[in-house]
């Protein structure tokens, strides 16, 4: 709507801002800013199975709302689209859907097993100097880069 936020905020502004958010949540509530935990509690609320930490559900909602405010209000030219531009250029729609779904299921399972994701282990865990989080982060960075190169080779360099 408005055109306040640039197409891509430089990393040296966004990164430190995120760092302050991590410190902020620890300083206010003694809690890390991990996102996969928010999924677990939101899922618990929907299925009414496990004990639900309600504020984690609000955090889940907040992620969506924050994205909405920046992309739809503070930035211009937002529209409904499929997303995944680079994948769609290489694969037909059905294959893209399949890949996204399979990849997301795998990352969800992995995050559950590891006890966190990019935000939980990758940033909040390493910021706490946790050996477990450092291990998880080093592992997923390595397999992610490796997998991307395999995809790159398999698609003959298209992806």
């Amino acid at each position, binding site marked *: 709507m408005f055109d306040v936020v640039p197409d891509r905020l430089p*990393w040296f502004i966004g990164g430190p801002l*995120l760092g302050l958010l*991590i410190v902020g949540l620890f300083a206010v509530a003694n809690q890390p800013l991990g996102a996969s935990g928010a999924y677990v509690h939101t899922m618990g609320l929907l299925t009414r199975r496990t004990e639900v930490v309600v504020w984690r559900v609000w955090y889940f909602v907040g992620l969506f709302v924050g994205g909405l405010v920046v992309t*739809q209000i503070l930035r211009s030219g937002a529209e409904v689209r499929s997303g*995944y531009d680079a994948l769609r250029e290489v694969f037909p729609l059905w294959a893209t859907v399949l890949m996204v779904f399979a*990849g997301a299921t795998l990352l969800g*399972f992995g995050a559950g097993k*590891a006890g966190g994701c990019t935000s939980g282990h990758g940033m909040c865990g390493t910021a706490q100097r946790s*050996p477990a989080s450092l291990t998880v982060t080093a592992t997923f960075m390595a397999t*992610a880069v490796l997998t991307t190169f395999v995809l790159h080779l398999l698609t003959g360099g298209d992806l």
Partner: protein
Amino acid sequence: MKLNLIGLLFGAMFGGVLAASNLHEYDTIHNMLRLKEFDVFWFMGSAIAVSAPLLWWLERRGIVTPLGGPLTLSRSRPERHHVVGGALFGIGWAVAGTCPAPALVMISSGAALGVIALAGIFLGLSLHSRQAQTSAHVGDGEHRSVTSGT
């Protein structure tokens, strides 16, 4: 109740930073993992470079947080499930080009396929919680119960 508002607020700010940095786009993550653009590595690195020393300092001062009792940082030892889970997470992250927090921003930015990613993440997490019936592995970066204030 205060904690709910804090959750919403920090979620919104985190989502806003992710959106502003374009981390909700598949292309951004893919170019990072293809080692074509290093912005996201710098982004993550500078977030840690800012938060790690501040957290260390706050811990050393022994501050008491208004909503969660005394500040406690957790430093668990690595175990097998960390490596296995991390490895699977990395493969999925590379294929889907998104992870839990940016997937939500992807949807709110209007990218319809983000819904597929969201459904997959939910499925994966529930498959895991079904498999691990004894104890949920709560990592150092995820929600923990604290003694007071919740």
